[in-house]
Each structure stands twice: as C-alpha cells, then as structure tokens.
C-alpha cells in the first residue's frame, strides 16, 4: 500500500482538519448565521405579509357579504313597508266607503220613515177633513131634500129600491 494515491498523508489530514474547522467556525459565526437568519426572517416576513393579505381579502369579502346582506334586508323591508302602506290605504278607502254607504242607507231609511209618518199624519188629517166635509155636505143635501115632501118620498123609494137590489 505504498501507492501515493491511496496512502493518506498526515500533514494534509492535519491541515484539512484545521482548514475545515476554521472555516466552519468563522463562516458559521459570520456568514451562515446572518445569511440564514436574514433569509428566514425575510421568508417569515413574506409569509406573514401573504397571510395578512389573505386576512384582509377575507375581511373584505366578509364586509362585502355584509353589505349585500344589509342591502337585501333593506330592500325587503322597504318592500314590506310599501306593501303595508298600500294595504292600509286600500283598507282606509274601503272602510270609508262602507261607512259612507252605511250612513247614506241610514239617512235614506230615516227619510223614508219620516216621509211615511208625514204621509200617515197627512192621510189622517185628510180623512178627518173629508169626513167633516162629507158630514157638512150630507147635512146640506139632507136639508135640501127634506124641504120638499115629494122629494123625501122619492128618496126613500130609491133607497129602498137600492136596498132590495143588493
């Protein structure tokens, strides 16, 4: 095994170990640590920025959804209010109409009743008047008839005749 290729030389082992360990120490302390620190810090920054952007997006979406919901609700409410108002209006109109009709009916009824009672009293008065007149006329006629004897007889005759006819 005296082949120089595969017989490791002590000096080179010594210097390799020294060189490697020195590099490991210096680079580890002054290069790898700050570089890896900076890289991971930056990556952390990017990650958190992305996360917060995502968060903001979600919030925005929530806000938009809220807005939409509120808008929808408002629209529904307005619709409901309008409907209610319309119904109220119609009800009021119909109520008024009914009342007016009822009022009118009542007035007509009263008027009819008044007319009826007026008519009745007028008829009664007229009857009384006509009865009086008839009595007066009959008095007058009887008076005239009874002034003449023949006429009195004639009348009796006639009346009797009538009576038999019946």
């Amino acid at each position: 095994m005296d082949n120089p290729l595969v017989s490791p030389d002590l000096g080179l082992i010594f210097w390799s170990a020294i060189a490697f360990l020195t590099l490991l120490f210096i680079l580890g302390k002054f290069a790898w640590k700050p570089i890896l620190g900076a890289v991971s810090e930056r990556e952390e920054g990017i990650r958190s920025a992305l996360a917060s952007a995502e968060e903001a997006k979600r919030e925005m979406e929530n806000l938009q959804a809220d807005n939409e919901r509120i808008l929808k609700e408002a629209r529904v409410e307005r619709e409901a209010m309008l409907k209610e108002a319309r119904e109220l209006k119609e009800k009021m109109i119909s109520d008024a109409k009914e009342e007016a009709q009822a009022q009118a009916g009542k007035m007509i009824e009263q008027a009819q009743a008044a007319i009826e009672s007026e008519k009745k009293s007028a008829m009664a008065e007229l009857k009384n008047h006509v009865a009086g007149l008839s009595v007066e006329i009959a008095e007058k006629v009887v008076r005239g008839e009874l002034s003449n004897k023949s006429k009195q007889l004639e009348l009796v005759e006639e009346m009797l005749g009538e009576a038999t006819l019946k």
Partner: protein
Amino acid sequence: MHSKTFKAFLTIFFLSFFATGFAGSKEPVEGDEPFDTNELIFHHITDSHGFHVAGDLTVPLPVILWTENGLVTFMSSEFHHDIEGKTIVERKGLKFVNLHEKIYQLNGGESAVNFDAELHPINAAKPLNFSITKNVFSMFLSMIVLLLVFLAAARSYKKSDSNMPSGIGRFMEPIIVFIRDEVAIPNIGEHHYKRFMPFLLTLFFFIWLNNIFGLIPFFPFSANLSGNIAFTMTLAVITFIITTFLGNKHYWGHIFWMPGVPVYMKLFLAPIEFLGIFIKPMALMIRLFANITAGHVIVLSLISLIFVLKSVWVAPVSVLFTVFISVIEVLVVAIQAYIFTLLSALYFGQALEEEH
C-alpha cells in the same frame, strides 16, 4: 452577439490553456525514450512540495517537519526541484531528501535512501511532515476565497433594510436555500436541521470550490486537493464522528438489534450493520476521491495521447475530447460536492431518527 463573442473567447481561452498549460508542463521527452504517461499523470494528481507554474518556473512552498530535534522549516526550493532524493538539505544537524515528493530524514553518514524488499526505507526515517504543499496551498487559497465571498455576502444582507442580498449574496442565496430546502430539511427533518446548516454549507462550498480549483489548469489552481484521499478522509471522518455522537437509542437499536425481524436475522444483521457504520464514511471518502481523481486522469490521459502517439494531428482530437470531458467535469464536481453533503445530511438524519 456580444455573449457569443464572449463565449467563443472563453472557449479559445480554455483551449489554449489546456493545450499550452498541460503541454508546457510536460517533462521534456528525451530522444527515443518512450513517453511515461504514468509518471506524468501521477506527478499531476499527487501532492508536491513546490508549485510548478510553467516551464522552469516553480513557486517554492515552505517545508515544515517535526523531527527529533524539534521543528525544522525551509523552503522547498532548497531541493532545487530534485525529487530523486539526490539533493540533501541539512538543518539542525539532520539531513533531508525529497524522494518522489516524500521527505526522508537520512540516518547519519548516509547520502541516499535505500529500501528493503517491502519498500520500507532501511537507512532513513520519515519525519512528521506538516509542509505547506501544493494541496495545502490550494486549500488555503480556497479558504480565503470562501471567506471573502461569504463574508461579503453576509454583509450585503446587513446593508439592505429588507434583508435583500446584493451582489455576490444574490448569487449565493439560491444555493444556500437549495442546501437548506433540498438537502438539510428532507434528510434531517424540520426539528433538527438548523443545527447542521453551518456544517453542511461549509462542507458543500469547501468541497465544491476545491473541486473547481482542481479543474482550472493553471497556477494558482490545478491542485488535486479534493481528489486526495487525505482530504476526503478528513471530511468523511468528521461526518463519521458527528454521526456517531448524534446516534440515539433508536439508531443504535437499529444497528445491534434490528427491530421487527426474527432473532436469527437480528444476529445475522448486527455485524453487517455494525460494519455499515464504518463503510458509510469510507464510501463517502472513496467516492469523492475517486471521482475527482478520475476526472483529472482522463483529462491528462487525453492530453498524453498526443505525446504517446507522437503526432501533432492527434492534438485537435485530444483537445476536443478534453473540452468535452471538462464540461462534464464541471457538472461532476458540483454533483460530487452535493452528494457528499447530501449523504452526510442523510447519515445525521438516520442518527437522529425517532421511533415511528
């Protein structure tokens, strides 16, 4: 339009380096002596004291030895590029020679190393060698580059208010995040992965950068560090140590007393699983070493074809194939660094796995 010109320029640039860089660094072929491909390739993929740039220009590197007389240091140029063990350097009363890039300490009165039948030196000792070799030099260079790049990257985060990187940091961040998201988290799990990130990142970039350095065929790169078994062994051993110390009850239970199988299977599996503890890091070590070394060997072999066949007409074919292999190697070096890191993470994850 500009990018096309640029690409063409890059291609030619690299081609010329492959052609001149490698060819220029060949040992001169003498007369009719057959060209020694083996030696050339070995010379390039093994370590050396002194960094050969081009032609006669070699950058000397310090030789650091621990001997019975204490620490001995001198520049590799003292050997005058001699690797045959002929030039003797005397320090602190001890004599040193460089024989095939191994430093031997000669016993008193000797002037050359002699070996016995089993190739053990009989009249020389091997002192502990902590020299800054070509590979160590390349490793230090990669350390400097890594520190510059990643400290600058870390600074660029601090400068911005929103933790955004700029410049080199912007380029490195996807790779770091890749290691975290594709290697650490899936294998180790969300709970524990943070502890291992520094290790995995350092491992990945250290291996990758040294792999890339090995691919660049000119000074001060071109060292075959990550294709050196000592280097891959060190890293594999670190992974092994961490895995072993992390291992929880569940992990060891799985190794020595596999749950859910009959007793005779438990007895049968225990030694296999136990060997597995050591085989896993060894596989890590050999995989990286073999892949990177193989890449270097292929490129060098293709270039050597020109000299083996002694025909300049082979050169275009060689260079074409070399470029092709190099492009594949660019992928391979990244994949090997990734696999080493991935498997390390996987082993840590296994050691930490809880009962499910």
